[in-house]
């Protein structure tokens, strides 16, 4: 069966520090991968998605970037964190698109102080 991992689970970082969040998927190959941010426990905002190694699409211009160095690894990064980057970050994968459900990881709670 497929599983998705995210780490760390929680993170407290000062403003201006770098960020690296990691997501890995097991039990499938060539998944579509997604990064979402959820603010204030409500709506999800799609940040990045990837259909293959090195292929990243950005939905919203911002202080963040994403990379996919391996087929089942997706990394969210920032060079300098802002207070507004605080939130709950969720990684997801799907087998394809056109009606395929996405499966979400457990999330990372980021607090920028």
């Amino acid at each position, binding site marked *: 069966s497929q599983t998705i991992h995210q780490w760390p689970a929680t993170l407290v970082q000062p403003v201006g520090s770098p960020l690296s969040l990691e997501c890995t998927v097991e039990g499938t190959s060539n998944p579509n991968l*997604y990064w979402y941010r959820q603010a204030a426990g409500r709506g*999800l905002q799609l940040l990045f998605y990837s259909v293959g190694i090195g292929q990243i699409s950005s*939905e919203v211009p911002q202080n963040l970037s994403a990379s996919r160095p391996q087929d089942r690894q997706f990394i969210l990064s920032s060079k300098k964190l802002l207070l507004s980057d605080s939130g709950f970050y*969720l990684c997801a994968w799907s087998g394809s698109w*056109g*009606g395929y459900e996405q499966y*979400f*990881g*457990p*999330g990372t709670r980021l607090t920028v102080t």
Partner: protein
Amino acid sequence: AQSVAQPEDQVNVAEGNPLTVKCTYSVSGNPYLFWYVQYPNRGLQFLLKYITGDNLVKGSYGFEAEFNKSQTSFHLKKPSALVSDSALYFCAVETGSTLGRLYFGRGTQLTVWP
């Protein structure tokens, strides 16, 4: 532009009563519709989806949803609510022009009291 509306921020029902969580959508083209549930500080869990065919879709934990094309709605229902159903519920849509990108509603907090 694609959008999803969940008109109720909060739904409260008594255990054993039927529940409905509402969702309407606005898309160009045919929609693929999804419901997800989120428990506190957890990721989202897939409940059910509508792709094509029968308008009544059955999913996990006894939930079902009815696709209504004329009313552009996809309401989530359960005949008998459980306290353990209390959680945050999200409706989402994907279309042929947004393949792979899900657009989520703001979520509805469901509370089932004993």
